[in-house]
């Protein structure tokens, strides 16, 4: 006779036990949802900060002033030298004639007479030639600065405006640490609660399990209803948490964009699938892990 285990047995036993443990099931779901939401929110915030830093990078630039006495040939040689650095995306020369005109325009018509002298007589121009550099990676700025100050000849001064990026990076690191610590704590708590739920189920089914073991049920057969039970917890938590996360993210990003035009946000369309997949992965791994750990003790032959 062919023996067949019916899936309906595992499903109905698991579902029944899920409802019988109403309170603990609910607790497990609530804690899992909170863990996922907190963790997910932090990750989204960090992703958005990163995204904005990339945007800011475009405005960040390094400005190198050449010595006042530098000739056009020397400035061209400086440009060549600068372009050799791996972190340099582009380097444009702004001749002092252009700079002085820009400066004049900046002060407006009524002060134009102050600049006339310098614009007309090249030798009187107090401004140096300027090299404007766009770099590739904000994190490699220090080496670039060092390179400009030591390796490139004819440099009068290097201006680097990296304070914005630095500040944002610092905030990001703090958020990341908080995120890791909180997530770790919540995962431990969820694991504990899931494990406890399973243990209560085990206790309430101890007699049944004893009989099953005497009659010759395999460990897999005994464990599967528990796996089903925790899979239900994982499924419900994932669905609710993903729903909340996705809709609140959409709402908040729309608000922020409406309020502060300069801040750019990652579109919800780009993240919703990752949110669902990430939540599903985390909750299922947690639940299955919790089930195996808490049932193992009962599963000796």
């Amino acid at each position, binding site marked *: 006779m062919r023996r067949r285990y019916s899936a309906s047995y595992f499903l109905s036993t698991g579902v029944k036990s899920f409802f019988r443990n109403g309170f603990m099931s609910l607790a497990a779901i609530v804690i899992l949802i909170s863990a996922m939401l907190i963790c997910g929110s932090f990750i989204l915030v960090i992703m958005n900060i990163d995204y904005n830093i990339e945007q800011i990078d475009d405005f960040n630039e390094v400005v190198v002033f050449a010595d006042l006495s530098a000739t056009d040939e020397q400035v061209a040689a400086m440009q060549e030298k600068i372009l050799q650095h791996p972190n340099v995306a582009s380097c444009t020369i702004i001749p002092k004639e252009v700079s002085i005109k820009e400066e004049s325009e900046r002060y407006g018509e009524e002060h134009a007479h102050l600049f006339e002298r310098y614009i007309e007589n090249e030798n009187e121009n107090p401004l140096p030639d300027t090299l404007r550099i766009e770099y590739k990676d904000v994190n490699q700025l220090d080496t670039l600065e060092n390179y400009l100050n030591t390796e490139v000849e004819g440099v009068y001064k290097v201006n680097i405006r990296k304070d914005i990026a630095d500040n944002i990076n610092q905030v990001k690191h703090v958020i990341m640490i908080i995120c890791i610590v909180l997530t770790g704590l919540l995962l431990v708590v969820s694991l504990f609660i899931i494990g406890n739920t399973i243990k209560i189920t085990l206790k309430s089914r101890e007699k049944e399990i004893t009989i099953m073991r005497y009659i010759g049920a395999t460990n897999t057969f005994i464990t599967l209803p528990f796996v089903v039970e925790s899979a239900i917890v994982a499924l419900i938590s994932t669905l609710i948490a993903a729903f909340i996360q996705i809709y609140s993210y959409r709402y908040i990003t729309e608000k922020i964009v409406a309020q502060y035009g300069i801040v750019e946000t990652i579109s919800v369309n780009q993240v919703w699938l990752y949110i669902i997949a990430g939540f599903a992965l985390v909750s299922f791994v947690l639940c299955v892990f919790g089930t195996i750990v808490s049932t193992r003790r009962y599963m*000796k*032959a």
Partner: protein
Amino acid sequence: MIEFKNASKSYKKNNYVLKNLNLTINDGEFVFIVGHSGAGKTTLTKLLLREEKLTSGTLHIDKYKLERLRNFRVPYFRRQIGVVFQDFKLLDNKTVYENVAFALQIVGVPKKYIKERVPYFLSLVELADKANSFPSQLSGGEKQRVCLARALINKPNIIIADEPTGNLDPSLSYDIMNLLVRINQITGRTVIVVTHEKELVNHFNKRVVMIENGEIVADKSGGYGNAQEI
């Protein structure tokens, strides 16, 4: 066939509960295991079920060599054995029918066979009319018969009952014992009954193995007869 050879068991170091046991039980035999409380009878049944492992010696049951049976094979080994418990171990939230069917379910027997077999075994223990009752609605004797039906339903080669009448009135005890003897005769299964009810044992005139302090002190047919008192 069941064969203990120089089998010993200690739970704590050098504190032997069973010492150097040699015992052979042939297929189809009916055997009483008797002895004082604490003699080691339950330990013996636990060894037979591979609930406990031997400390030394060998125990062979049919094709299974229990002294080196791997854990993952234990469930399949246990399907050769039906167990009857002193405390019945029935599930209170299941009916008589469901309690018996459960034993088939958990070893993966298809529904079709379950529907055929459960009524047959319920009638064998004379409980056909109680199929839909819950354990709480049954007398002790009836509960024990449900337990017996559940032990029998997987058609095990061996039935083991540890003090099956320990919680029953004397007259009911007799009924259960009678049922076990009849099952042995009808089905030809090996039946091992642990008990300390001397009169009951004497009534049935079967092989009796007496254990004292972890050792077999008597093994003979025909009840205690005039053997030493226990």
